[in-house]
């Protein structure tokens, strides 16, 4: 769409000339997040610095029916922070301060553009940290984490972003600026916080976030166990969980990634292993010692080749750096990749690995794996080369089959990355028409004019066409309503 000169003038009046990007070159750099498969350049990028500016931007866009697409650090992988319908992209990167640290109440209030890791870095010396640790945390923003309800390796024990949000300030698509939640853990009314977290920018723009801080645990123990096959590693994962141990993190990294990580980061992963488990325990010292003492024999029982314990914080940090930069290092080993984010129940992990290998063989494409094995959240990476005819198509096919296999085993279409554009058409795999229609009504509550990140999250194909029109829902089949006038 083209934005009129008058519109741009109004927008510039809100954010200032330095807060507005309109050049074609500038807008080009905002056309994709990390998933460059999905491209859509906005017509303008606004970089506000206050919640009031955000409110005015949304009201202007609502008035003129211009789409609004929020963006944090642009590290999402679902095509969330791109603008397929054009409009105004609102980059929150300049709103990146810590507003308050309240250790007495164990919480912090931050602006959405603050980089996740920077919060923990600021609080660690006081003995606290922010638990949600997506692999992108060294660059992803807390606003982005809230938008997709991000997970990360430690969410196995500590939960995902929504479990650590106490409150947030939201500019709704209806042009209201509201504060939801707060330091008190409860208040009368509906839990709107649970809707806003994970809203993927479809309900509004988050302009401030109050998060829970956890106390740094007494002890941390990080183990690296290597196996000759993924099967052995997956079975070990099941055995650990079956033993009643919930590690703080339980990550599985396959041979492909081990090689890539060693080339890229040099994290000390054992080369030549078929699969590696990165296991972290945290908590009271005796507890982690006891857990480690049980985990080591479990690993041995499943043919572990080597079990290593990180000797100090530096080694631990390096092991984690290897894991967290896995998505980045893949550029060394392949031209292109499709990253999947699906979930299966833990107990079905070995099964999905088998099905994945069959899919890989069938399509002649390598599938590499790094994932949060502890909660069954897979991140298979389908490797291909877009310069080779047909490989992209085969990759997409394989991707689809993989997702269907996960759902068939009782899983979810997305574990932590979110739906965005990438999983939108897959939503009917997990939800029926009534379920999607319910969610559509939720969306309309906050965004009555459909300007907030349109074309994302909920599908709009004809099968659900009627579900998208708000109005009284259809009455399900049952005994006919008693006809009026049929009695006295």
């Amino acid at each position: 769409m083209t934005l009129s000169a008058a519109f741009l003038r109004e927008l510039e009046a809100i954010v200032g000339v330095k807060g507005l990007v309109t050049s074609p070159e500038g807008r080009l750099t905002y056309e994709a997040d990390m998933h460059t498969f999905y491209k859509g350049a906005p017509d303008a990028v606004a970089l506000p610095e206050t919640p009031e500016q955000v409110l005015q931007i949304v009201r202007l866009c609502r008035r003129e029916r211009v789409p609004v697409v929020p963006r944090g650090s642009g590290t999402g992988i679902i095509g969330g922070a791109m603008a397929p319908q054009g409009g105004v992209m609102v980059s929150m990167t300049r709103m990146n301060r810590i507003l308050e640290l309240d250790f007495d109440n164990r919480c912090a209030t931050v602006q959405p553009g603050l980089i996740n890791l920077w919060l923990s870095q600021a609080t660690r010396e006081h003995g606290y940290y922010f638990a949600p640790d997506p692999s992108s945390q060294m660059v992803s923003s807390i606003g982005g984490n809230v938008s997709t309800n991000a997970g990360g390796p430690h969410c196995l024990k500590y939960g995902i972003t929504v479990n650590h949000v106490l409150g947030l300030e939201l500019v709704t698509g209806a042009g209201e600026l509201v504060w939801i939640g707060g330091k008190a853990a409860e208040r009368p009314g509906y839990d709107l916080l649970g809707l806003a977290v994970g809203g993927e920018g479809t309900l509004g723009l988050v302009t401030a976030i109050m998060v829970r801080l956890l106390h740094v645990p007494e002890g941390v123990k990080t183990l690296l166990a290597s196996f000759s096959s993924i099967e052995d590693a997956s079975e070990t994962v099941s055995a650990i969980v079956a033993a009643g141990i919930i590690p703080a993190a339980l990550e599985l990294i396959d041979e492909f990634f081990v090689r890539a990580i060693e080339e890229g980061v040099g994290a000390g992963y054992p080369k030549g292993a078929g699969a590696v488990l990165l296991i972290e325990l945290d908590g009271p010292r005796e507890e982690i010692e006891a857990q480690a003492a049980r985990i080591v024999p479990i690993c041995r029982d499943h043919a572990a080749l080597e079990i290593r314990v990180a000797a100090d914080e530096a080694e631990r940090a390096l092991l984690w750096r290897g894991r967290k930069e896995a998505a980045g290092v893949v550029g060394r080993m392949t031209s292109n990749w499709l990253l999947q984010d699906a979930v299966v129940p833990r107990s079905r992990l070995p099964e999905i690995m088998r099905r994945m290998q069959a899919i890989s063989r069938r399509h002649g494409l390598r599938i590499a794996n790094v994932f949060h094995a502890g909660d069954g959240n897979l991140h298979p990476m389908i490797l291909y080369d877009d310069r080779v005819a047909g490989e992209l198509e085969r990759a997409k096919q394989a991707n689809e089959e993989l997702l269907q296999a996960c759902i068939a085993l009782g899983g979810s279409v997305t574990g932590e990355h979110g739906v965005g554009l990438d999983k939108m058409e897959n939503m009917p795999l997990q939800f029926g028409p009534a379920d999607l229609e319910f969610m559509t009504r939720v969306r309309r509550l906050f965004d009555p004019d459909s300007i907030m990140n349109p074309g994302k999250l909920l599908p709009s194909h004809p099968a659900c066409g009627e579900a998208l029109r708000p109005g009284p829902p259809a009455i399900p089949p049952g005994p006919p309503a008693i006809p009026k006038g049929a009695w006295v």
Partner: protein
Amino acid sequence: MRAMAVSSPALDRALGDIVGREHLLSDAAALEVHAVDGVRPRWVARPSAVEQISRALALASAEGLAVAPRGSGSSLSLGNAPGRLDLVLDLGRMQRIIEYVPEDMVGTAEAGLSLGALGAQLAARGQMLALDPIGGASRSVGGVLACHASGPLRVRYGTGRDLLLGVRFVQADGTVTWGGSRVVKSVSGYDVPKLLVGSLGTLGVIAEATVRLHPLPPARGSWVVSTPSHAIAADCLAALLASTLEPDRLAVLNAEASKLVGVDGARAALLVSFGSVAEAVASQGAALERLAKEHRAGAAPVAAESWAQLAPALSGPVKLKLACEPRRLLHWLAELEREAAGGRLTVSAVGQGGHGVLEASLTGPLTARGLATRVLAPLRHELGREGGSLVVERAPVELKAELEPWGPISPELFAIHGRVKQAFDPTRVLNPGRFAGRL
């Protein structure tokens, strides 16, 4: 609100067709037992499956009936007294465990199953649902979720909000709907389960809940820290929360409540349990004892049964739930006691130490008007000034008439709340007028 155009016998027949004649109650005695705040329904229906709930609500929606879902009935007085009540949907027959895969630590139960019965099944496999509202073993899963009830395990495991993964519910018009997922990690679409938690059934009736489970700890030990003053209790609590100790249950007890666990003469007490390997339990208990001593308090181990002994603390005729900033918990406990003392009331209070939530029960001579205007309204007002709240969860109807039980919804959110109710229950079938804001 439609005029009652449909005759009782016709509806009677229709409802009987849905749940079966023997599960539709309309005799005076049954209706009296199932009254809500003294308002008797016209029917009590006891469905055995989701489809029956669906058909009943479809009918209610078409005929403009007001419906109140019911679990164990222990929190029926939560909320405003019903202006109209036609049908009570008693989910007590729906007690199946639909699916339980211990390896996945996920289970799906029907809403009418009691926490105690569910817990027993899970314990047989060394697991638990970490929801333990005080005195709540007989409460239903659906009820506990709909009321957002919680207990001492909150400090480690959160509440229903954090434990509910997926929910099968029935909308006001009878549409059976699924929200969330069946696995521990999923972000597909909006977190609809969270919307339903604490919604008192006003947006939908929970039929099945898929919950996240946890392993039972290998060992447990409980301690009580008794303190001579609120200030020392606050210090001990702050020190505990700022330490690396990881209790799995934490309760703050006032003088009255602490008598139930054998503590006499303390102004306040902390009841703490650790759940871990035996060595970690012992070592943390010892650390707690040292911490108490450093803060001029006394600490001693207590029996595991102490937790179950707390139930009488909250069983008085008036039950409150206060919420405030965590660091202000002891302050508001002291305030409540002071106000109550002014009215010669006895307060028994159990607080969630890590979250600033205080449940309290009052007994004593004050009239409804006096209690409302001299104790509760001023407290609620003061709490409100610092972002806190005071909800009257259980009270005689006369008190509810004097003081709106919920307290105000934040004004800026009120409009959105109205839209929420309008979107999902436009004809006001589900608990109309009972929720906050008289929604």
